[in-house]
């Protein structure tokens, strides 16, 4: 069963490949969407009544925030440290944990689906994907990585069973990917794809490496031992992949 839901300012695609009764699949998709809307209500920077906005205005203290909110802030702080400051939820001046929330909410959604009996599914939110189990026909999921210049072409095809694929590219937001350490637009890398166990981490790593520019390539190589493989394309069209990237030829 495939479902498309507009939420969190993006489009979320859900596919359940489980051999379950159709009404059960509908229920699982419904609860997944409900969770994503709950996250949106809590973390949206566009809703005045969201927890993020109320916290920004000083209306609620951190101690009075939800467990999820405090968890997200903790993880953003961890990732800020782990990326040498290149992943910065405060980079725009005000707190904006959106860069972590999208991946984290999908990660949680996938875990909840597994707990509820869906052991073969994928959830893709705005081009960042979490897969569990095998795909249609029992083979691994095949994930295409968008070509960084031609939107209708693929640069790589990956084969993934359990894991996440996140891509950040300057082509998405023009020059609006900032290097938080210099305050200038990031340049050097056109797109970065990170493959690993946790979508929130993969997404944060891809964003951080993109902000680093070409030195992000060496930084990505250091993530291999943590279980995160990568592919990157420079502004002048050179491509780099880590040796363990699960490409399909």
């Amino acid at each position, binding site marked *: 069963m*495939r479902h*498309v839901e*507009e939420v969190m*300012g*993006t*489009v979320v*695609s859900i*596919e359940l490949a489980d051999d379950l009764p159709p009404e059960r699949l509908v229920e699982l998709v419904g609860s997944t969407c409900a969770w994503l809307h709950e996250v949106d209500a809590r973390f949206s920077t566009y809703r005045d009544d969201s927890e993020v906005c109320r916290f920004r205005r000083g209306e609620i203290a951190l101690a009075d925030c939800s467990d999820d909110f405090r968890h997200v802030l903790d993880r953003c702080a961890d990732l800020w440290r782990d990326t040498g400051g290149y992943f910065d939820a405060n980079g725009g001046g005000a707190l904006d944990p959106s860069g972590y929330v999208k991946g984290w909410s999908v990660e949680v959604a996938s875990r909840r689906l597994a707990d509820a009996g869906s052991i073969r599914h*994928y959830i*893709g939110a*705005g*081009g*960042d*994907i979490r897969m569990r189990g095998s795909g*249609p026909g029992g083979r691994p*999921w*095949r*994930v*295409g*990585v*968008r*070509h*960084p210049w*031609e*939107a*209708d*072409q*693929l*640069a*790589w*095809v*990956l084969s993934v069973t359990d894991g996440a*694929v*996140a*891509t*950040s*590219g300057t082509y*998405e*937001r023009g020059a609006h990917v900032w290097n938080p350490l210099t305050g200038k637009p990031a340049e050097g890398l056109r*797109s970065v*794809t990170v493959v690993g166990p946790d979508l929130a981490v993969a997404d944060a790593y891809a964003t951080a490496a993109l902000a680093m520019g*070409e*030195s992000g*390539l*060496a930084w*990505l*190589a*250091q993530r*291999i*031992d943590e279980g995160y493989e*990568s592919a*990157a*394309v420079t502004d002048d069209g*050179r*491509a*780099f*992949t*880590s*040796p363990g990237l699960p490409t*399909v030829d």
Partner: protein
Amino acid sequence: MRRSTAAAVGTLTGAALILGVRLSVQPATVPVSSAAGGSSAEEPEIDAAGAEKTAEPEATATKKPAGKKTTAPEKNEEEEAGLKSGTYKGKAVQHTYGTVQVTIKISGGKITAADATFPKEGFSGTINPNAVKSLNASTLKKQSADVDAVSGATLTSGAYASSLQAALDKAA
């Protein structure tokens, strides 16, 4: 003279990899600034120079390296650019932390990949061999294949409509 070129390139690349010096001119491979770099910080200038040499295959375009070839050349037309296509193993070099051997891959006259190997036995353990890892130069392909999902397709709901992912969702 010819024979030594690939080995020399390999050795210098190895030194650069070991000390974590970044190949800034043409990063065919991107060495990690490993923890070992810190302890060898007094020697960066020498090795940075070595890295420059290895990073400019064009500079040695008139000399074709004929080092110990381990695989057959890939494509004949690529050999015109200077360096002969193929995979070359550098001389095994004894460092204080163990024996290091570097392999480089030449394609289209350029170094497209470099890798350093460390012997499992007799390794002194001063640095972790896994600390020296790199991303390899790869070919940027353009393909349209049958996939289940697309990564990097869109960030906004506005851009989604024209994305490959939208096409996939419609087809399902």
